[in-house]
Protein backbone atom coordinates (compact mmCIF):
# COMPACT_ATOMS: atom_id res chain seq x y z
CA UNK A 1 0.00 0.00 0.00
CA UNK A 2 2.74 2.38 1.05
CA UNK A 3 4.92 1.63 -1.98
CA UNK A 4 2.03 1.65 -4.42
CA UNK A 5 0.95 5.03 -3.06
CA UNK A 6 4.48 6.36 -3.41
CA UNK A 7 4.88 5.15 -6.98
CA UNK A 8 1.48 6.51 -7.96
CA UNK A 9 2.16 9.82 -6.20
CA UNK A 10 5.53 10.20 -7.93
CA UNK A 11 4.19 9.43 -11.38
CA UNK A 12 1.00 11.46 -11.07
CA UNK A 13 2.88 14.45 -9.75
CA UNK A 14 5.44 14.22 -12.53
CA UNK A 15 2.64 15.21 -14.88
CA UNK A 16 0.46 17.27 -12.52
CA UNK A 17 3.11 18.98 -10.42
CA UNK A 18 3.22 22.02 -12.65
CA UNK A 19 -0.56 22.47 -12.46
CA UNK A 20 -0.40 22.13 -8.65
CA UNK A 21 2.20 24.88 -8.65
CA UNK A 22 -0.04 27.01 -10.88
CA UNK A 23 -3.03 26.41 -8.58
CA UNK A 24 -0.99 27.35 -5.52
CA UNK A 25 0.54 30.49 -6.99
CA UNK A 26 -2.66 31.77 -8.62
CA UNK A 27 -4.73 30.79 -5.59
CA UNK A 28 -2.32 32.57 -3.25
CA UNK A 29 -2.51 35.74 -5.37
CA UNK A 30 -6.31 35.73 -5.25
CA UNK A 31 -6.35 35.03 -1.52
CA UNK A 32 -3.74 37.63 -0.53
CA UNK A 33 -5.11 40.44 -2.68
CA UNK A 34 -8.17 42.02 -1.11
CA UNK A 35 -11.05 41.49 -3.50
CA UNK A 36 -12.43 45.02 -3.00
CA UNK A 37 -9.02 46.41 -3.93
CA UNK A 38 -8.99 44.14 -7.01
CA UNK A 39 -12.41 45.47 -8.00
CA UNK A 40 -10.90 48.96 -7.89
CA UNK A 41 -13.30 50.13 -5.18
CA UNK A 42 -10.68 52.51 -3.79
CA UNK A 43 -9.95 53.96 -7.24
CA UNK A 44 -13.21 55.91 -7.21
CA UNK A 45 -15.34 57.92 -4.83
CA UNK A 46 -18.90 56.95 -4.05
CA UNK A 47 -20.51 60.14 -5.29
CA UNK A 48 -22.81 61.76 -2.77
CA UNK A 49 -23.51 64.95 -4.69
CA UNK A 50 -27.10 65.93 -4.20
CA UNK A 51 -29.72 66.67 -6.75
CA UNK A 52 -30.65 70.39 -6.62
CA UNK A 53 -34.41 70.64 -7.24
CA UNK A 54 -34.08 74.44 -7.31
CA UNK A 55 -31.97 74.14 -10.48
CA UNK A 56 -34.63 72.12 -12.27
CA UNK A 57 -36.08 74.80 -14.49
CA UNK A 58 -36.72 72.52 -17.42
CA UNK A 59 -40.00 70.80 -16.54
CA UNK A 60 -41.33 67.34 -17.20
CA UNK A 61 -43.92 68.87 -19.53
CA UNK A 62 -41.20 70.37 -21.70
CA UNK A 63 -39.39 67.03 -21.72
CA UNK A 64 -42.49 65.16 -22.86
CA UNK A 65 -43.08 67.68 -25.61
CA UNK A 66 -39.53 67.29 -26.87
CA UNK A 67 -39.41 63.52 -26.43
CA UNK A 68 -42.87 61.95 -26.69
CA UNK A 69 -41.67 58.35 -26.31
CA UNK A 70 -40.04 58.33 -22.92
CA UNK A 71 -39.62 54.80 -21.56
CA UNK A 72 -37.74 55.67 -18.42
CA UNK A 73 -36.72 58.85 -16.68
CA UNK A 74 -34.34 59.52 -13.87
CA UNK A 75 -32.74 62.51 -12.23
CA UNK A 76 -29.25 62.66 -10.83
CA UNK A 77 -26.06 64.62 -11.24
CA UNK A 78 -23.33 64.81 -13.84
CA UNK A 79 -20.26 66.68 -12.60
CA UNK A 80 -22.42 68.25 -9.91
CA UNK A 81 -25.04 69.52 -12.37
CA UNK A 82 -28.57 68.19 -11.96
CA UNK A 83 -29.56 66.24 -15.06
CA UNK A 84 -32.38 64.17 -16.47
CA UNK A 85 -31.50 60.78 -17.87
CA UNK A 86 -33.95 59.51 -20.44
CA UNK A 87 -34.37 56.13 -22.01
CA UNK A 88 -36.45 56.46 -25.15
CA UNK A 89 -38.74 53.72 -26.42
CA UNK A 90 -37.72 51.75 -29.50
CA UNK A 91 -37.78 53.40 -32.88
CA UNK A 92 -35.89 56.50 -31.90
CA UNK A 93 -32.19 57.00 -31.76
CA UNK A 94 -30.12 57.49 -29.73
CA UNK A 95 -31.86 55.43 -27.09
CA UNK A 96 -30.27 57.11 -24.08
CA UNK A 97 -29.91 60.82 -23.41
CA UNK A 98 -28.64 63.06 -20.67
CA UNK A 99 -30.27 66.46 -20.51
CA UNK A 100 -29.50 69.44 -18.32
CA UNK A 101 -32.36 69.87 -15.87
CA UNK A 102 -31.66 73.59 -15.82
CA UNK A 103 -31.62 74.41 -19.53
CA UNK A 104 -32.85 71.30 -21.33
CA UNK A 105 -29.63 71.17 -23.28
CA UNK A 106 -28.63 67.69 -24.45
CA UNK A 107 -25.27 66.79 -22.91
CA UNK A 108 -24.62 63.45 -24.62
CA UNK A 109 -22.88 61.86 -26.40
CA UNK A 110 -20.07 62.96 -24.14
CA UNK A 111 -17.23 64.97 -25.60
CA UNK A 112 -13.69 63.92 -24.85
CA UNK A 113 -13.13 66.77 -22.42
CA UNK A 114 -16.36 66.03 -20.51
CA UNK A 115 -15.42 62.34 -20.33
CA UNK A 116 -12.04 63.28 -18.88
CA UNK A 117 -13.73 65.58 -16.35
CA UNK A 118 -16.09 62.78 -15.30
CA UNK A 119 -13.18 60.35 -14.89
CA UNK A 120 -11.24 62.92 -12.85
CA UNK A 121 -14.32 63.64 -10.75
CA UNK A 122 -14.52 59.98 -9.71
CA UNK A 123 -10.80 59.25 -9.54
CA UNK A 124 -9.29 59.20 -6.06
CA UNK A 125 -5.63 58.94 -7.13
CA UNK A 126 -3.20 61.74 -7.82
CA UNK A 127 -1.94 60.69 -11.24
CA UNK A 128 -2.45 62.73 -14.40
CA UNK A 129 -4.50 61.62 -17.35
CA UNK A 130 -2.16 59.71 -19.64
CA UNK A 131 -4.38 58.65 -22.52
CA UNK A 132 -7.98 59.03 -23.65
CA UNK A 133 -9.62 56.75 -26.22
CA UNK A 134 -13.17 56.38 -27.48
CA UNK A 135 -14.02 52.68 -27.77
CA UNK A 136 -16.90 51.95 -30.10
CA UNK A 137 -16.26 48.29 -30.91
CA UNK A 138 -13.93 45.43 -29.95
CA UNK A 139 -13.75 46.38 -26.27
CA UNK A 140 -10.78 45.13 -24.24
CA UNK A 141 -11.55 42.06 -22.11
CA UNK A 142 -11.88 44.25 -19.04
CA UNK A 143 -14.93 46.11 -20.37
CA UNK A 144 -18.30 44.51 -21.08
CA UNK A 145 -19.50 45.14 -24.67
CA UNK A 146 -22.90 46.29 -23.34
CA UNK A 147 -21.23 49.48 -22.06
CA UNK A 148 -20.16 50.61 -25.53
CA UNK A 149 -19.54 53.20 -26.73
CA UNK A 150 -17.30 54.28 -23.88
CA UNK A 151 -14.38 56.57 -23.18
CA UNK A 152 -11.33 54.93 -21.71
CA UNK A 153 -9.34 57.33 -19.54
CA UNK A 154 -5.93 56.01 -18.48
CA UNK A 155 -4.14 57.55 -15.54
CA UNK A 156 -0.41 57.75 -15.06
CA UNK A 157 -0.34 56.16 -11.63
CA UNK A 158 0.52 53.06 -9.61
CA UNK A 159 -1.10 50.05 -11.26
CA UNK A 160 -1.93 51.92 -14.49
CA UNK A 161 -5.59 52.56 -13.67
CA UNK A 162 -8.20 52.94 -16.41
CA UNK A 163 -11.64 54.41 -15.84
CA UNK A 164 -14.37 53.80 -18.40
CA UNK A 165 -17.10 56.39 -18.90
CA UNK A 166 -20.13 55.58 -21.03
CA UNK A 167 -20.37 58.01 -23.94
CA UNK A 168 -24.17 57.71 -24.00
CA UNK A 169 -24.87 58.20 -20.30
CA UNK A 170 -21.76 59.71 -18.70
CA UNK A 171 -21.96 56.93 -16.12
CA UNK A 172 -18.78 55.35 -14.81
CA UNK A 173 -18.99 51.83 -16.23
CA UNK A 174 -15.60 50.38 -15.36
CA UNK A 175 -12.62 50.79 -13.06
CA UNK A 176 -9.61 48.62 -13.69
CA UNK A 177 -5.94 48.49 -12.82
CA UNK A 178 -3.04 46.09 -13.35
CA UNK A 179 -3.91 44.09 -10.24
CA UNK A 180 -7.34 43.34 -11.67
CA UNK A 181 -5.80 42.36 -15.00
CA UNK A 182 -3.40 40.00 -13.24
CA UNK A 183 -6.22 38.65 -11.13
CA UNK A 184 -8.16 37.88 -14.31
CA UNK A 185 -5.18 35.95 -15.70
CA UNK A 186 -4.68 34.17 -12.40
CA UNK A 187 -8.31 33.08 -12.39
CA UNK A 188 -8.07 31.76 -15.93
CA UNK A 189 -5.02 29.71 -15.06
CA UNK A 190 -6.67 28.56 -11.83
CA UNK A 191 -9.68 27.13 -13.68
CA UNK A 192 -7.51 26.05 -16.63
CA UNK A 193 -9.59 28.03 -19.06
CA UNK A 194 -7.32 29.15 -21.82
CA UNK A 195 -10.07 30.62 -24.00
CA UNK A 196 -12.66 33.01 -22.52
CA UNK A 197 -12.14 33.10 -18.77
CA UNK A 198 -15.74 32.15 -18.10
CA UNK A 199 -15.92 28.40 -18.50
CA UNK A 200 -15.23 26.63 -15.27
CA UNK A 201 -16.86 23.49 -16.67
CA UNK A 202 -14.18 22.68 -19.21
CA UNK A 203 -13.11 19.09 -19.83
CA UNK A 204 -9.41 19.82 -19.31
CA UNK A 205 -10.05 21.00 -15.77
CA UNK A 206 -12.20 17.94 -15.07
CA UNK A 207 -9.57 15.39 -16.05
CA UNK A 208 -6.68 17.22 -14.46
CA UNK A 209 -8.62 17.76 -11.23
CA UNK A 210 -9.71 14.13 -11.19
CA UNK A 211 -6.13 12.87 -11.59
CA UNK A 212 -4.98 15.53 -9.13
CA UNK A 213 -7.40 14.14 -6.56
CA UNK A 214 -5.62 10.82 -7.00
CA UNK A 215 -2.32 12.60 -6.52
CA UNK A 216 -3.54 14.30 -3.35
CA UNK A 217 -5.12 11.15 -1.91
CA UNK A 218 -1.99 9.06 -2.49
CA UNK A 219 -0.11 11.91 -0.83
CA UNK A 220 -2.43 11.58 2.16
CA UNK A 221 -1.70 7.84 2.28
CA UNK A 222 2.01 8.69 2.41
CA UNK A 223 1.38 11.20 5.19
CA UNK A 224 -0.39 8.44 7.12
CA UNK A 225 2.48 5.98 6.72
CA UNK A 226 5.36 8.36 7.27
CA UNK A 227 4.04 10.68 9.92
CA UNK A 228 1.32 9.00 11.89
CA UNK A 229 2.18 5.32 11.52
CA UNK A 230 5.84 6.24 11.69
CA UNK A 231 5.31 7.32 15.27
CA UNK A 232 4.70 3.72 16.24
CA UNK A 233 7.29 2.01 14.07
CA UNK A 234 10.09 4.37 14.98
CA UNK A 235 11.10 2.27 17.96
CA UNK A 236 11.30 -0.92 15.90
CA UNK A 237 13.31 0.37 12.97
CA UNK A 238 16.52 2.27 12.92
CA UNK A 239 16.59 5.78 11.51
CA UNK A 240 18.72 4.79 8.54
CA UNK A 241 16.20 2.20 7.45
CA UNK A 242 13.38 4.67 7.72
CA UNK A 243 15.14 7.16 5.53
CA UNK A 244 15.90 4.30 3.17
CA UNK A 245 12.22 3.62 2.73
CA UNK A 246 11.55 7.26 2.24
Amino acid at each position, binding site marked *: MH*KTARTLHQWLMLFLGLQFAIWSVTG*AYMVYMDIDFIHGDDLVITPQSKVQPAQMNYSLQQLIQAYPHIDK*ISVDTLLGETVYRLTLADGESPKKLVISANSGQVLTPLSESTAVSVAQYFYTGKGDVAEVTLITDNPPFELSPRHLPAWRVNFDDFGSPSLYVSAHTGILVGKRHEFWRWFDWMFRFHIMDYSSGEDIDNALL*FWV*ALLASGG*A*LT*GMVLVYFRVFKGQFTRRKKSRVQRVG*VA
Partner: protein
Amino acid sequence: MRWVRKLHKWASVIVGIQFVLWLASGLYFNLMDHTKAAGLSYFNQDMVQHQLDATQLIEPKAVLEQHSDSMALDTVFLLAKPYYLLSHQQGLYAHSYHEYTLVDAYSGEVVTLDEALVTRLAQASYSGEGKVAELKLLTPPISDFPKQQNPTWQVSFADDINTEVYVEAQSGRIVGHSDEHKKLADIFFMLHFMDYNNQGSFNNVPMMLMAFFSLWLTITGCYWCIDLLRKGKYRHKRRPRIKTTAIKLP
Protein backbone atom coordinates in the same frame (compact mmCIF):
# COMPACT_ATOMS: atom_id res chain seq x y z
CA MET B 1 17.32 17.67 -0.51
CA ARG B 2 16.77 16.55 3.05
CA TRP B 3 15.17 19.88 3.93
CA VAL B 4 13.07 19.83 0.79
CA ARG B 5 11.69 16.44 1.77
CA LYS B 6 11.11 17.51 5.37
CA LEU B 7 9.31 20.66 4.28
CA HIS B 8 7.24 18.66 1.83
CA LYS B 9 6.26 16.16 4.49
CA TRP B 10 5.24 18.67 7.15
CA ALA B 11 3.52 21.02 4.71
CA SER B 12 1.47 18.08 3.50
CA VAL B 13 0.51 17.23 7.08
CA ILE B 14 -0.84 20.77 7.48
CA VAL B 15 -2.60 21.29 4.16
CA GLY B 16 -3.26 17.70 3.06
CA ILE B 17 -6.91 17.52 4.06
CA GLN B 18 -7.58 21.02 2.70
CA PHE B 19 -5.95 20.00 -0.60
CA VAL B 20 -8.38 17.11 -0.90
CA LEU B 21 -11.27 19.47 -0.04
CA TRP B 22 -10.07 22.02 -2.62
CA LEU B 23 -9.93 19.38 -5.33
CA ALA B 24 -13.27 17.82 -4.41
CA SER B 25 -15.04 21.20 -4.31
CA GLY B 26 -13.22 22.24 -7.49
CA LEU B 27 -14.52 19.15 -9.23
CA TYR B 28 -17.99 19.98 -7.94
CA PHE B 29 -17.79 23.50 -9.47
CA ASN B 30 -16.62 21.91 -12.70
CA LEU B 31 -19.58 19.55 -12.87
CA MET B 32 -22.39 21.56 -11.25
CA ASP B 33 -25.35 23.01 -13.09
CA HIS B 34 -24.73 26.75 -12.89
CA THR B 35 -28.37 27.79 -13.07
CA LYS B 36 -29.24 25.49 -10.19
CA ALA B 37 -26.16 26.49 -8.19
CA ALA B 38 -27.14 30.16 -8.54
CA GLY B 39 -30.56 29.38 -7.07
CA LEU B 40 -32.29 30.18 -10.35
CA SER B 41 -34.23 26.92 -10.82
CA TYR B 42 -37.55 28.74 -10.52
CA PHE B 43 -36.45 32.19 -11.56
CA ASN B 44 -38.91 33.80 -13.90
CA GLN B 45 -36.96 35.09 -16.90
CA ASP B 46 -39.88 36.86 -18.54
CA MET B 47 -39.78 40.56 -17.92
CA VAL B 48 -43.14 42.03 -17.06
CA GLN B 49 -44.11 44.34 -19.90
CA HIS B 50 -44.40 47.89 -18.75
CA GLN B 51 -45.66 50.91 -20.56
CA LEU B 52 -44.87 54.31 -19.18
CA ASP B 53 -47.51 56.96 -19.63
CA ALA B 54 -45.22 59.94 -19.20
CA THR B 55 -48.14 62.38 -19.19
CA GLN B 56 -49.42 60.86 -15.92
CA LEU B 57 -46.06 61.19 -14.18
CA ILE B 58 -45.71 63.47 -11.21
CA GLU B 59 -43.19 66.26 -11.76
CA PRO B 60 -39.84 64.90 -10.46
CA LYS B 61 -38.91 68.34 -9.14
CA ALA B 62 -41.96 68.38 -6.87
CA VAL B 63 -41.22 64.91 -5.53
CA LEU B 64 -37.58 65.80 -4.87
CA GLU B 65 -38.59 68.98 -3.03
CA GLN B 66 -41.03 67.11 -0.80
CA HIS B 67 -38.46 64.65 0.50
CA SER B 68 -35.09 64.91 2.16
CA ASP B 69 -32.02 65.44 -0.02
CA SER B 70 -31.50 62.82 -2.72
CA MET B 71 -28.54 61.76 -4.78
CA ALA B 72 -30.79 60.35 -7.46
CA LEU B 73 -34.36 59.76 -8.53
CA ASP B 74 -34.90 56.65 -10.65
CA THR B 75 -37.94 55.16 -12.28
CA VAL B 76 -38.41 51.54 -11.28
CA PHE B 77 -41.21 49.25 -12.36
CA LEU B 78 -42.77 47.01 -9.75
CA LEU B 79 -45.45 44.73 -11.20
CA ALA B 80 -45.42 46.88 -14.35
CA LYS B 81 -46.26 50.01 -12.34
CA PRO B 82 -43.83 52.93 -12.31
CA TYR B 83 -42.38 54.19 -9.05
CA TYR B 84 -39.82 56.86 -8.30
CA LEU B 85 -37.00 55.49 -6.20
CA LEU B 86 -35.22 58.28 -4.30
CA SER B 87 -31.71 57.44 -3.10
CA HIS B 88 -30.79 59.46 -0.05
CA GLN B 89 -27.64 57.54 0.54
CA GLN B 90 -25.87 55.62 -2.19
CA GLY B 91 -23.32 52.83 -2.27
CA LEU B 92 -20.98 51.67 -4.98
CA TYR B 93 -23.00 48.50 -5.60
CA ALA B 94 -26.65 47.52 -5.35
CA HIS B 95 -25.87 45.40 -2.28
CA SER B 96 -24.06 48.29 -0.54
CA TYR B 97 -25.88 50.20 2.17
CA HIS B 98 -28.58 52.48 0.76
CA GLU B 99 -31.36 54.69 2.04
CA TYR B 100 -34.33 54.83 -0.27
CA THR B 101 -37.80 56.31 -0.48
CA LEU B 102 -40.26 54.68 -2.85
CA VAL B 103 -42.88 56.97 -4.35
CA ASP B 104 -45.80 56.12 -6.63
CA ALA B 105 -44.81 57.89 -9.86
CA TYR B 106 -48.41 58.59 -10.88
CA SER B 107 -49.84 59.72 -7.52
CA GLY B 108 -46.76 60.92 -5.65
CA GLU B 109 -47.68 58.90 -2.58
CA VAL B 110 -44.93 57.33 -0.52
CA VAL B 111 -45.10 53.54 -0.72
CA THR B 112 -43.88 51.24 2.00
CA LEU B 113 -43.64 47.65 0.87
CA ASP B 114 -46.15 45.66 2.89
CA GLU B 115 -46.46 41.89 3.06
CA ALA B 116 -49.07 41.79 0.31
CA LEU B 117 -46.93 43.72 -2.17
CA VAL B 118 -43.78 41.80 -1.23
CA THR B 119 -45.65 38.54 -1.79
CA ARG B 120 -46.78 39.65 -5.24
CA LEU B 121 -43.28 40.84 -6.17
CA ALA B 122 -41.83 37.50 -5.10
CA GLN B 123 -44.50 35.60 -7.02
CA ALA B 124 -43.80 37.63 -10.15
CA SER B 125 -40.15 36.57 -10.12
CA TYR B 126 -41.03 32.94 -9.39
CA SER B 127 -41.87 30.39 -12.06
CA GLY B 128 -42.48 27.31 -9.88
CA GLU B 129 -45.72 25.77 -8.69
CA GLY B 130 -45.28 26.32 -4.94
CA LYS B 131 -47.42 28.56 -2.79
CA VAL B 132 -46.01 31.21 -0.48
CA ALA B 133 -45.48 29.59 2.90
CA GLU B 134 -43.82 32.28 5.00
CA LEU B 135 -42.62 35.89 4.96
CA LYS B 136 -39.81 37.17 7.13
CA LEU B 137 -38.16 40.57 7.25
CA LEU B 138 -34.42 40.00 7.71
CA THR B 139 -31.75 42.47 8.71
CA PRO B 140 -28.18 41.89 7.48
CA PRO B 141 -26.16 39.72 7.70
CA ILE B 142 -28.28 37.46 5.53
CA SER B 143 -26.74 34.01 5.28
CA ASP B 144 -27.84 33.30 1.69
CA PHE B 145 -26.61 36.69 0.46
CA PRO B 146 -23.75 37.68 2.75
CA LYS B 147 -22.88 40.84 0.79
CA GLN B 148 -26.37 42.33 1.01
CA GLN B 149 -26.29 45.23 3.47
CA ASN B 150 -29.93 46.31 3.32
CA PRO B 151 -33.00 44.94 5.12
CA THR B 152 -34.55 42.25 2.97
CA TRP B 153 -37.75 40.22 2.92
CA GLN B 154 -37.38 36.47 2.70
CA VAL B 155 -40.37 34.88 0.96
CA SER B 156 -40.42 31.10 1.33
CA PHE B 157 -42.27 28.97 -1.20
CA ALA B 158 -43.54 25.47 -0.45
CA ASP B 159 -42.02 23.54 -3.34
CA ASP B 160 -39.75 20.53 -3.89
CA ILE B 161 -36.52 22.51 -3.41
CA ASN B 162 -37.68 25.03 -0.77
CA THR B 163 -37.22 28.13 -2.90
CA GLU B 164 -36.75 31.42 -1.09
CA VAL B 165 -37.10 34.74 -2.88
CA TYR B 166 -35.32 37.74 -1.39
CA VAL B 167 -36.88 41.17 -1.90
CA GLU B 168 -35.12 44.33 -0.77
CA ALA B 169 -37.41 46.00 1.75
CA GLN B 170 -36.97 49.65 0.76
CA SER B 171 -36.70 49.36 -3.01
CA GLY B 172 -38.56 46.18 -3.94
CA ARG B 173 -35.51 44.99 -5.88
CA ILE B 174 -35.26 41.21 -6.23
CA VAL B 175 -31.97 40.44 -4.50
CA GLY B 176 -32.00 36.84 -5.65
CA HIS B 177 -33.38 33.38 -5.20
CA SER B 178 -32.09 30.63 -3.01
CA ASP B 179 -33.01 26.98 -2.73
CA GLU B 180 -31.56 23.61 -1.77
CA HIS B 181 -29.36 23.50 -4.88
CA LYS B 182 -27.83 26.89 -4.05
CA LYS B 183 -27.36 25.97 -0.40
CA LEU B 184 -25.51 22.81 -1.43
CA ALA B 185 -23.29 24.78 -3.83
CA ASP B 186 -22.68 27.32 -1.04
CA ILE B 187 -21.35 24.54 1.18
CA PHE B 188 -18.79 23.70 -1.49
CA PHE B 189 -17.90 27.38 -1.87
CA MET B 190 -17.46 27.59 1.90
CA LEU B 191 -15.09 24.59 1.78
CA HIS B 192 -13.16 25.90 -1.21
CA PHE B 193 -12.80 29.43 0.23
CA MET B 194 -12.48 28.23 3.85
CA ASP B 195 -15.18 30.80 4.50
CA TYR B 196 -16.38 29.25 7.73
CA ASN B 197 -17.68 32.59 9.03
CA ASN B 198 -19.82 33.06 5.90
CA GLN B 199 -18.36 36.44 4.95
CA GLY B 200 -18.81 35.67 1.27
CA SER B 201 -15.09 36.18 0.70
CA PHE B 202 -11.87 34.23 0.34
CA ASN B 203 -9.69 36.94 1.89
CA ASN B 204 -9.60 35.34 5.33
CA VAL B 205 -6.78 34.40 7.68
CA PRO B 206 -7.14 30.58 7.62
CA MET B 207 -7.15 30.73 3.82
CA MET B 208 -4.02 32.91 3.76
CA LEU B 209 -2.20 30.50 6.09
CA MET B 210 -3.18 27.51 3.99
CA ALA B 211 -2.14 29.32 0.81
CA PHE B 212 1.26 29.96 2.40
CA PHE B 213 1.82 26.29 3.29
CA SER B 214 0.47 25.15 -0.09
CA LEU B 215 3.07 27.26 -1.82
CA TRP B 216 5.79 25.50 0.17
CA LEU B 217 4.21 22.12 -0.52
CA THR B 218 4.10 22.61 -4.29
CA ILE B 219 7.50 24.32 -4.55
CA THR B 220 9.21 21.53 -2.62
CA GLY B 221 7.19 18.95 -4.56
CA CYS B 222 8.26 20.38 -7.90
CA TYR B 223 11.86 20.60 -6.73
CA TRP B 224 11.74 17.00 -5.56
CA CYS B 225 10.21 15.92 -8.85
CA ILE B 226 12.95 17.64 -10.85
CA ASP B 227 15.58 16.11 -8.58
CA LEU B 228 14.17 12.62 -9.19
CA LEU B 229 14.09 13.29 -12.92
CA ARG B 230 17.68 14.47 -13.01
CA LYS B 231 18.79 11.37 -11.16
CA GLY B 232 16.87 9.19 -13.59
CA LYS B 233 14.62 7.80 -10.85
CA TYR B 234 11.57 7.71 -13.03
CA ARG B 235 13.08 4.86 -15.06
CA HIS B 236 13.65 2.35 -12.32
CA LYS B 237 10.29 2.47 -10.64
CA ARG B 238 10.18 -1.34 -10.47
CA ARG B 239 13.27 -1.52 -8.26
CA PRO B 240 12.57 0.62 -5.21
CA ARG B 241 15.52 -0.86 -3.23
CA ILE B 242 18.10 0.55 -5.64
CA LYS B 243 16.23 3.81 -5.77
CA THR B 244 16.33 4.25 -2.00
CA THR B 245 20.07 3.75 -1.73
CA ALA B 246 20.58 6.29 -4.45
CA ILE B 247 18.51 8.85 -2.57
CA LYS B 248 20.72 8.43 0.47
CA LEU B 249 23.97 9.21 -1.33
CA PRO B 250 23.87 13.03 -1.56
